[in-house]
């Protein structure tokens, strides 16, 4: 019986990888547990093991091939005790078990909310293609080169090179004094970071995910956000709390939550959530340079996506400025973080149906750039807010309140919000897809506000 060996997913969010090396050749007989190949992602290199006995009949993807999508057939294998022969058109799938997984679990499905859409460039001049992950790392590295007060602290940021490989290479360049692995003690190290900032340093505190920052939220709000005000402006807390936020893929309710509305409710904090790699870099640099405490919300599903990033090392995106990522005239879609991708995807679908949507990436959620939102509304007179998060007391709620208070006369239809479903995020693939915000719902909402246009 012929079996297909498929490109494995080595982390919950992996979409493609490099087939770095074959350790077997055609005709080799292998048994379960034998290492067949080495697979590289931008996070790590993993070994790919056989899960069954048999002979490798054909290698379809040669060593060194980059960008091999998860699920692609990379080799054919003849089951034990059977004659080798040509592969049938439809072959049973043999899942190969990866070993040494970089993040907690290996879950195969591709992300459901991530939609790769090319947005309009946010900058001019020469640029380089980078993943969001690399852009974030470059931002930290550049600021650390300039300013010795900047250091990075968190779980697995140093020797492990980052649980999601955002801090890859920083330990090698800056050493253990400035790239510091902590024990699993979020409350403690968030407080240590805040104290170090009060003492004059510029900490970048990484939470492995913002779900774990709930253990530390007292220091983010009570210690960091209120210090400057409570001290009458004499004691500052210039600190960046950063890490992935929002739903990843198939990690269940406790690991999938968007905390943007929580932090954006707190005076004294800056809250930022980039979408593309250029913003990831320029916004993180602005966050590190800021004299104020910043909550910097990244998204795991975006880490591996590539975008053009300016090569200039002084590329800083101003705090508090939204960006029009797609100009349009008939309806405004407002979003941030991964929701921008959903909104752009919807805008492209709408364009095919003759509706011209403008897409705004809020970028900074506190302070909110209401001017850009209201100005766009005055042009389009219709608005839909897109958010990968719960609907109640959300950023969408806040945008709608602002529009009611300040843009009511510009509205030709009620503002709609398109968000995740109001439930804890389920694990099952089909339910998770149903729960998360999606472009089709945005398209439907836009059509409803554009009725009679």
């Amino acid at each position, binding site marked *: 019986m012929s079996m297909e060996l498929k490109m494995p997913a080595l982390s919950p969010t992996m979409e493609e990888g490099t087939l770095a090396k074959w350790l077997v050749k055609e005709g080799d007989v292998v048994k379960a547990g034998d290492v067949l190949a080495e697979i590289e992602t931008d996070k790590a290199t993993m070994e790919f093991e056989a899960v069954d006995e048999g002979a490798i009949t054909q290698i379809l993807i040669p060593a060194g091939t980059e960008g091999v999508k998860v699920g692609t057939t990379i080799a054919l294998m003849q089951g034990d005790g059977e004659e080798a022969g040509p592969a049938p058109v439809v072959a049973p799938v043999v899942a190969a078990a990866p070993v040494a997984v970089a993040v907690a679990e290996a879950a195969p499905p591709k992300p459901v909310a991530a939609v790769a859409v090319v947005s309009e460039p946010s900058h001019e001049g020469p640029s380089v293609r980078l993943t969001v992950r690399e852009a974030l790392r470059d931002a930290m590295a550049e600021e650390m080169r300039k300013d010795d007060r900047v*250091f990075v602290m968190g779980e697995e940021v140093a020797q492990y090179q980052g649980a999601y490989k955002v801090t890859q290479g920083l330990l090698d360049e800056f050493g253990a*004094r400035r790239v510091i692995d*902590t*024990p699993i*003690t979020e*409350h*403690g*190290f*968030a*407080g*240590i*970071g*805040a*104290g*170090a*900032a*009060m*003492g*004059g*340093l510029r900490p970048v505190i990484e939470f492995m995910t913002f779900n774990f920052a709930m253990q530390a939220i*007292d*220091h983010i709000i*009570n*210690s960091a956000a*209120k*210090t*400057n*005000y*409570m*001290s*009458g*402006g*004499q*004691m*500052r807390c*210039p600190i960046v709390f950063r890490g992935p936020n929002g739903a990843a893929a198939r990690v269940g309710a406790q690991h999938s939550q968007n905390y943007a509305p929580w932090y954006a409710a707190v*005076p*004294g904090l*800056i809250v930022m959530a980039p979408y593309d790699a250029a913003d990831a870099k320029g916004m993180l640099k602005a966050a590190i340079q*800021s*004299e*104020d405490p910043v909550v910097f919300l990244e998204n795991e599903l975006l880490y591996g996506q590539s975008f053009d990033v300016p090569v200039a090392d002084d590329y800083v995106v*101003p*705090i*508090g400025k939204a960006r029009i990522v797609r100009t349009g005239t008939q309806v405004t879609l407002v979003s941030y973080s991964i929701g921008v991708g959903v909104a752009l995807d919807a805008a492209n679908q709408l364009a095919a149906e003759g509706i011209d949507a403008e897409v705004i990436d809020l970028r*900074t959620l506190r*302070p909110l750039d209401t001017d850009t939102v209201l100005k766009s509304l005055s042009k389009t007179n219709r608005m839909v807010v897109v958010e990968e998060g719960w609907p109640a007391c959300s950023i969408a709620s806040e945008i709608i309140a602002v529009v009611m208070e300040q843009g009511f006369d510009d509205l030709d239809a009620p503002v709609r919000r398109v968000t995740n479903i109001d439930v804890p995020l389920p694990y099952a693939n089909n339910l998770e897809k149903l729960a998360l915000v999606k472009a089709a719902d945005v398209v439907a909402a836009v059509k409803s506000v554009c009725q009679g246009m």
Partner: protein
Amino acid sequence: MARKPASASPPASATLHPPVPQRHGAKVEEMLEFYRQMVLIRRFEERAGQLYGLGLIGGFCHLYIGQEAVVVGMQSAITPGKDSVITGYRDHGHMLALGIDPNVVMAELTGRAAGISRGKGGSMHMFSVEHGFFGGHGIVGAQVSLGTGLAFKHKYAGDGGVCLAYFGDGASNQGQVYECFNMAELWKLPIIYVIENNQYAMGASINRASAEDQLYRRGESFRIPGIQVDGMDVLAVRGAATAALEWVRGGKGPIILEMKTYRYRGHSMSDPAKYRSKEEVQSMKDNRDPIDHLKAELLDHGVTEDQLRVIDKDIRALVTKSAEFAEQSPEPDVSELYTDVLVGQY
């Protein structure tokens, strides 16, 4: 099921300890200064209590009366401008012992523009970066993590400074304290954890709240040495401070000083005083008072009652002046409502 016999002798503790501290051998001049500072704190706090009763101070107000020897003894040993101090909400004494002007402290208590936090912090939220005083924190236990961060800064910057992080017996049961003990010892941070064990966390006596009531032992799981100190004796406190600073400045990592002390007043101004007897409080005042104790020692050293009366009179004048200043200073301008939320303009 048969039980394994207990091993003949438990493994020796791996925690290294400094030598047993000696009571500080102070000269008369130094003792007079300790006396002056303790009396200042006592009279200041008494006046704050009065102003609270008059409605001039609002909200929570936690008085330090009874515990004066702790901050005076500890802070006489540190180097101003180099070391850092952080504490919880019972913070007035810590500021006065750092030499911060009583006027701006009292004006903060009354919520006036001239207050050290421009009237926006209040009793629990006062800071003076200039004096190395980093608060003044209202969340029990938070100052332990923040103080460990200040110690991290001292080590990172190589500035030779040490952080004094004060917290109470109540805070010593908070989880973040142990997270920080672990990291402080792991990274050998220059910090002295000063546990002001005044025996009551609000109304919960230490024996009702703490399975291990010998708080100086609380670092043993992290190999942090601890010393129990008579916190009602300023010279004993100073002696322990000297030993602890030598340990920490020598790069040996953190140390815990448990100060056995006592607060005469309630937890805050609104305290039912039902959790301990009047006799217990009176007995501490009569027999263990840190100011009386030092006064007796000064008289033994040949200082006269008249000399001490001069100090007392000067302190009363200083405190009266601070109360007048705090009452007469204007409230913050309404525009202050919106200032200092963020440093930057965005």
